[in-house]
């Protein structure tokens, strides 16, 4: 027994000694490492957690390339309300876009170098574009007839690259597709691609068996590219990855970065997270200098705001939440039922309950976030039906649909009771709260309503796509590119797809058409094919684009494939105790991670 006690005592002593030792030479929490610009602590909200096994590869979903820090794009898109083609410099210092969008000429920073001292050249860009072809991209697609694909990549000189769009099937998203490309060093990645890659690509663009074979060979390369693991980080970004453990990553300043003199922090520490509550804990503890948007309950928000230095920056987020109907199921095939429901939902109250910090109630249903909607539609926005809370109008609509009210409860036209069931994924607490608020509002109006939660998001999406739900929550308005916005309402989920440049529509319940909408709908008494109109947004520009958006907004407003509930707000957390210079409210940089703010020279040591 004495031996047991001695062992226990020794273990305890060892633990205490070790703990005290560990705090003795530990750097100051979250900040000043004692040299230069200090240590900047954040999380990477774009990745599902850190993984020490992940390669330093920007295309790998668990890769340890962090956007804006050690992963660089040609340019960084601005969070513009309507124009997807506005950018801040990245690998490219400047660019010229042809007036008809047929080409873009990129000029690289003249003095930019990789972290190993070698210059960043136009050949690096061309090689990275070759890699992008294997991974899929709007601008670098091997599929024949893909809209907005490049037809030629030309190295003009050591620091200039010209990329030409295939004008047989152009898209306004071509430039954005080019600029979003990751650029990696050819001298590190050269083993991944064979020397005849561009010949293969040329062959793949043709037709027939040889072209098919070339496409297969390029597709087969995709796995090799995705799995490639450089032995060490060679970056043209402001930082390089120094080391990692399963819970943290340390990046150190790249002195060869073109704007290194203006990069504030000397080091960046990324913390791992597996759930929102860990981010809340980091914020409450004041550990983070910045954290991207996370759904936060009101009481947690209060605690976060009491931590010294913590603050919130808000801006536009091109995402809205819609309550989507499965029109293959009765009574949701009837537009009057959908409209009646829209009149019964108090969006102000729901947003206040479900997403008080991260959302604003939708002014109406247009399929577009209200901020760009005001830009695109102007005065026409006010002319759309706002679907304000109005029980009388709801009753009128339900009666038009043939629904009957019996004993204070609504029933279907054949007299069977109407059960309104809305499905939401259980892990999305704001969606669950919103759905519960909706069902309680509907119950007050005599509708037997219930919320059913699904275990997780992958299962939710699978069952949603299989048409198992009557009504479900669905993210919409994913801008700023107009085609991207409207394909959420009138794309694959509602039956429309583009094959070989032609628009096709699948029957409700088939070919991914879980929303079950018909091919044509009636808008202001005229038949409209919203899928065709959406597809036209790919190539339309200027006034034509504005006109189509006006038609689609009206179609969405009258036909209501979804009821737009709230528009998300980009809520970023910052702590000004250690660093300053964060973007202001409504900054067009808020959708970019803080690595981009740092590399542009904004963030400085306090």
């Amino acid at each position, binding site marked *: 027994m004495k031996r047991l006690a001695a062992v226990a005592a020794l273990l305890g002593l060892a633990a205490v000694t070790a703990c005290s030792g560990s705090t003795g030479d530990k750097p100051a929490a979250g900040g000043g490492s004692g040299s230069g610009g200090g240590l900047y602590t954040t999380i990477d909200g774009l990745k599902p957690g850190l993984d020490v096994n992940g390669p330093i590869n920007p295309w790998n979903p668990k890769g340890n390339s962090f956007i804006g820090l050690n992963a660089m794009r040609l340019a960084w898109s601005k969070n513009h309300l309507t124009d997807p083609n506005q950018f801040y410099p990245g690998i490219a210092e400047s660019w010229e876009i042809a007036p008809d969008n047929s080409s873009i000429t990129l000029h690289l920073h003249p003095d930019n170098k990789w972290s190993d001292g070698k210059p960043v050249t136009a050949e690096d860009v061309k090689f990275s574009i070759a890699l992008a072809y294997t991974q899929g991209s709007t601008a670098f697609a091997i599929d024949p007839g893909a809209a907005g694909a490049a037809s030629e990549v030309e190295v003009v000189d050591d620091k200039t690259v010209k990329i030409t769009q295939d004008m047989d099937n152009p898209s306004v998203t071509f430039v954005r597709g080019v600029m979003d490309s990751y650029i990696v060093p050819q001298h590190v990645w050269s083993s991944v691609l064979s020397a005849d890659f561009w010949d293969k690509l040329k062959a793949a663009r043709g037709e027939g068996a040889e072209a098919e074979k070339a496409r297969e060979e390029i597709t087969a390369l995709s796995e090799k590219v995705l799995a490639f693991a450089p032995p060490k980080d060679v970056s043209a970004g402001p930082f390089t990855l120094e080391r990692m453990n399963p819970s943290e990553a340390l990046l150190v300043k790249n002195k060869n970065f073109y704007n290194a003199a203006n990069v504030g922090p000397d080091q960046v520490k990324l913390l791992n997270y597996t759930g929102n509550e860990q981010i809340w804990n980091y914020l409450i503890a004041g550990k983070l200098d910045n954290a991207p948007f996370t759904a936060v309950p009101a009481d947690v928000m209060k605690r976060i705001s009491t931590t010294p230095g913590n603050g919130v920056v808000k801006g536009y987020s091109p995402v809205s939440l819609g309550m989507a109907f499965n029109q293959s199921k009765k009574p949701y095939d009837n537009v009057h039922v959908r409209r009646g429901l829209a009149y019964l939902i108090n969006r102000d109250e729901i947003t206040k309950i479900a997403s008080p910090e991260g959302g604003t109630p939708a002014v109406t249903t247009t399929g577009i976030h209200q901020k760009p909607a005001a830009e695109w539609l102007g005065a026409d926005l006010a002319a759309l039906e706002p679907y304000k809370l109005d029980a009388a109008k709801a009753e009128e609509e339900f009666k038009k649909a043939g629904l009957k009210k019996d004993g204070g409860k609504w029933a279907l036209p054949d007299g069977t009771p109407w059960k309104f069931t809305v499905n939401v994924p259980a892990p999305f607490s704001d969606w669950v709260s919103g759905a519960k608020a909706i069902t309680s509002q509907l119950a007050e109006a005599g509708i037997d309503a219930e919320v059913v939660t699904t275990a997780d998001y992958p299962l939710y999406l699978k069952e949603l796509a299989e048409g198992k739900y009557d009504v479900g929550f669905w993210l919409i308005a994913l801008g700023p590119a107009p085609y*991207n916005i409207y394909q959420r309402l009138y794309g694959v989920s509602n039956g429309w797809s583009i094959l070989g440049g032609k628009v096709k529509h699948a029957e409700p319940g088939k070919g991914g058409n879980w929303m079950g909408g018909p091919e044509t709908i009636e808008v202001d008494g005229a038949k409209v094919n919203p899928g065709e109109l959406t597809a036209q947004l790919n190539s339309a520009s200027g006034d034509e684009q504005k006109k189509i958006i006006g038609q689609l907004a009206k179609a969405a407003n009258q036909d209501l494939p979804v009821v737009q509930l709230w528009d998300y707000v980009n809520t970023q957390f910052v702590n000004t105790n250690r660093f300053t210079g964060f973007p202001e409210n409504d900054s067009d940089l808020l959708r970019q991670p803080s690595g981009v703010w740092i590399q542009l020279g904004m963030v400085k040591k306090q």
Partner: protein
Amino acid sequence: MFARRLAGHLARGLVMILVVTTVSFFVIRSVPGDPMAARYEKLVEQGMSPVAAQRAVEVLYGFAPTGGLWQQYVDYMSGLLRLDLGQSLMVPGVGVSTVLFSAAKWTVLPVLAGTLLSFLVGVVMGVYAAIRRSGRLGDVLAISGSLLHGVPQYVLALLLGAVFTTLLPILPTSGTADIMFEPGFNAGYIGSLIEYATLPVLTYALASYGGWILAMKSSVVTVLGDDFILAAELRGIKRGIVFRYVARNAILPLFTILALSLGMLFGGAIFIERIFNYPGLGLMLIDGINNRDYALMGGAFLLITVAIIVANIVADLFYTVIDPRVRSGEGAA
């Protein structure tokens, strides 16, 4: 005799592994859900065009097993014979065995430390609780054991997490080590490892301490009533020697439980790892399930199964070594 016993155990163990692997293979693949759709949604939400997002997701399908279910099963089993657990879908290009062993160390060390700590303290306290069972100390120890035994691991973890996040923020509540320390055999890094592991270890130790103290107390009380103890006392043997008789006999069944607990090392701390963001096998398994990474899930279940079977064999063989009655067949009579 020993060799025949060992051979029998190994043969049964292999059959068990085969059965569990087969069952888990088909059960795992029947889990519904579409992780690719979830990834697609995430990419378009981040601003990627639908076409690019679709293509990026399709690339990942290249890492998924192909062919019909039976073909996949045959491929999986033949891979297992070559100790190839397949490719992870979650971390494309990385083998499942690499992911598993990378996570395993972060489970084994804290759970092993927690188990041994709770075993040592629980056994000592259990003996005292039995000897002083009619006194106040015995009552206090027994009640504390019962209370802790009844509190689920995740409740303890949440409580400790809440306390050390807000009221007493002196210990890290998330992670494995401070990245500012260079990994290696240096005081700073090792201290940081211990500092970060303290709460997971403490939670695990507290959660299992109750079981040990109650088991030891019960075992000691039983042995105290045995005839050979009465005989020893009547013969006037010294109290210390009698105590040794009691302790040695009472601890025997606990060694079996300890061996079995060690078998649970690989799968026994899912909640603790989730709450303290401690990246062991439990957390990896949750990620694997959320991402429907079949190969990773299969590998994790296989590892847990093998560990439990090996622990069972070791427990059985160990018992024959430490208890002469079992070795001579008396225990079975």
